[in-house]
């Protein structure tokens, strides 16, 4: 504790952990329950996870580079949160639904959302807009925590549709909503927990406590342990080492199962760290020290998977090269795509404001079309 003053209320609270930072198994018997839940996780699964986490990290690097070269206006970096995202999203099934925040690149990727489409927002060509129905991933919003209520309402809809506790594992569905430690302070998150609890809605609240909300540390954000927030609303909760992909997977799997089976919501606090800046506009040196960054880099989630694979004898350079190669190709395609993304037509701003004709919208659209025409004709020029 003494050497990690920036870690708010962390050490004392029980935290599920199955793999130690050095890749060896955590043999603490208090986590037997969770260990048993993921006995089926074999080397192939570990390799899949490694690949997903490596791609996620590469995406982060590539998007950051694209921002640096002016191709993107902004990017929200997720480096360090790979285990939290990949471990949890792999606990979702095709019929489940995800409500992400703005940093869930790994989640989107695993659900099949083309990440290049996520970058539309950061290139300023649209406000997002991937195919939500296809991937069962809803649009994110930059308004912190507003989506926690949408997720809860959506889960109430699934409940009403009779798709909970049917007994058929391919039918039963649940919702997972991602948000940060800062988001827990907004009234909406509390209201969402309460609505979910009262309705016993099938929704899992997955909080990535990455220690920071921009420049504000946990010590100024809440009086923890944050994980207990759920219990205050009658929502079961669990805290997990968010950099341990196996532990994250175990707790999320259990929570999603419970939700699908009619057991109601769960609140998960995944303790992790945002290794990068809040966004490419941010400068963490203004508010945090390198000691903290070092502490967490020793607990890097990707390295832990590599170590685990090594320990299992499932790591080899060929595999590593394969994944690196795939990541290179992925990054190259991303670059090409982003650079090719042109300016949308200005008239697009008038589209889809309403689903049915609205006179003010139509009048302005028409006026603008005429104005653009005149400008093009040189009449409006001064």
């Amino acid at each position, binding site marked *: 504790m003494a050497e990690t003053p920036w870690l708010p209320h962390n050490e004392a609270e029980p935290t599920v952990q199955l793999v130690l930072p050095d890749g060896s198994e955590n043999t603490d018997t208090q986590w037997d329950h969770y260990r048993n839940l993921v006995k089926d996780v074999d080397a192939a699964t570990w390799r899949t996870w490694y690949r997903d986490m490596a791609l996620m990290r590469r995406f982060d690097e590539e998007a950051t580079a694209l921002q640096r070269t002016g191709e993107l206006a902004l990017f929200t970096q997720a480096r360090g949160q790979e285990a939290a995202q990949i471990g949890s999203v792999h606990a979702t099934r095709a019929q489940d639904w995800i409500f992400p925040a703005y940093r869930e690149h790994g989640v989107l990727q695993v659900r099949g959302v083309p990440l290049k489409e996520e970058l539309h927002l950061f290139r300023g060509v649209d406000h997002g807009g991937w195919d939500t129905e296809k991937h069962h991933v809803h649009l994110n*919003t930059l308004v912190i925590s507003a989506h926690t209520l949408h997720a809860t*309402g959506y889960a109430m809809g699934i409940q009403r549709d009779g798709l909970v506790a049917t007994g058929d594992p391919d039918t039963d569905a649940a919702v997972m909503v991602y948000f940060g430690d800062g988001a827990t302070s907004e009234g909406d998150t509390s*209201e969402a927990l*309460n609505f979910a609890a009262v309705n016993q809605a099938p929704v899992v609240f997955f909080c990535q406590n990455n220690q920071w909300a921009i420049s504000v540390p946990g010590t100024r954000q809440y009086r923890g342990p944050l994980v207990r927030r759920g219990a205050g609303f009658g929502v079961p909760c669990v805290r997990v080492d968010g950099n341990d992909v196996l532990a994250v997977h175990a707790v999320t799997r259990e929570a999603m199962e419970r939700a699908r089976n009619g057991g109601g919501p769960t609140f998960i606090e995944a303790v992790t760290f945002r290794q990068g800046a809040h966004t490419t506009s941010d400068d963490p040196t203004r508010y945090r020290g390198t000691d903290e960054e070092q502490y967490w880099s020793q607990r890097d989630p990707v390295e832990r998977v590599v170590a685990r694979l090594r320990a299992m004898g499932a790591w080899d350079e060929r595999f590593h090269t394969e994944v690196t190669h795939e990541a290179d190709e992925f990054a190259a395609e991303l670059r090409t795509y982003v650079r090719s993304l042109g300016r949308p037509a200005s008239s697009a701003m008038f589209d889809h404001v309403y*689903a049915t004709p*609205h006179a003010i919208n139509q009048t302005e659209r028409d006026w603008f079309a005429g104005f653009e025409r005149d400008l093009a004709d040189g009449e409006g020029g001064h």
Partner: protein
Amino acid sequence: MAEQRIPLAKAINAALEAALSADPKVLLMGEDIGPLGGVFRVTADLATKFGEDRVVDTPLAESGIVGTAIGLALRGYRPVCEIQFDGFIFPAFDQITTQLAKLHARSRGRLTVPVVIRVPYGGGIGAVEHHSESPEALFAHTAGLRVVSPANPADAFVMLQEAIACPDPVLFFEPKGQYWAKGDVDLSAGPYATGQSVATQFDTLNTAKVVREGTDVTLIGYGPTVVTALKVAQSAAAEGTSIEVIDLRAISPIDFPTLIESVQKTGRCVVVHEAPVFFGAGAEIAARLTQECFYHLEAPVARVGGFHTPYPPAKIEHDYLPGLERVMDAIDSVLAY
């Protein structure tokens, strides 16, 4: 089915019942709307008829109501939320303004969020603070929302059905002071009552209605002020002034073609609403009508409404509200030009 003479509150109840019956995806959400039937009894008996899963008493949290309604709408439901009183809509302001209004556009048309938010609004009923306000202008400024207000039972019955059937989010402002005013209602009208499950026309959400023809002055009101306007027109007629009364019905959009046609005929216009005049709907109407009817206007468009003060205590609310005298005064002033 034929006409029935029923109060506005009952017309809304009937519209809700028609929608709940016709479409299993319709559901009502709000505080005290279930067994109690709402503090105005607008949802009376609906929980008994349709069950508490479709007429849902929610926790006391307006942001939660609208926010979860958005989620339900994304899932294919058509939630109709009740906000208990006008003054209590503000905790939901963020969800309405940044989320509900924008989801259709953000998804580039892929998603619709057909949420209706019913708000009993307006004053004159002797209520305490926060129970008599008219916040409609605060929603009309935001693109993506429709804002409407019926003035009589017949319109209320059809407009609410159209609002529920409409894929756009609708703020539905109910003039609570008129809840018990009766009118003839054709209970077979409207998308749900006629059995069209998918409505494609939303006439009443888009159009104003000339409710009394006249030639000297156009008098525009909506919701609670239409009754006032009609009374003024009647007494003015006795004095030889012919007033055309328009019930706006829709505040976003505003049916300017109908207004313009009238003002080009009369050359004079008064707008009356209970909301404060400063930054109120009358400003938008006056500004645009002046733009469109500049050479027809014999006088500037006059606005009558609430003052730039908090809604006052009940004992003096009738001097805050735009009553007959103040509207008359405005009519006189535009005629004096």
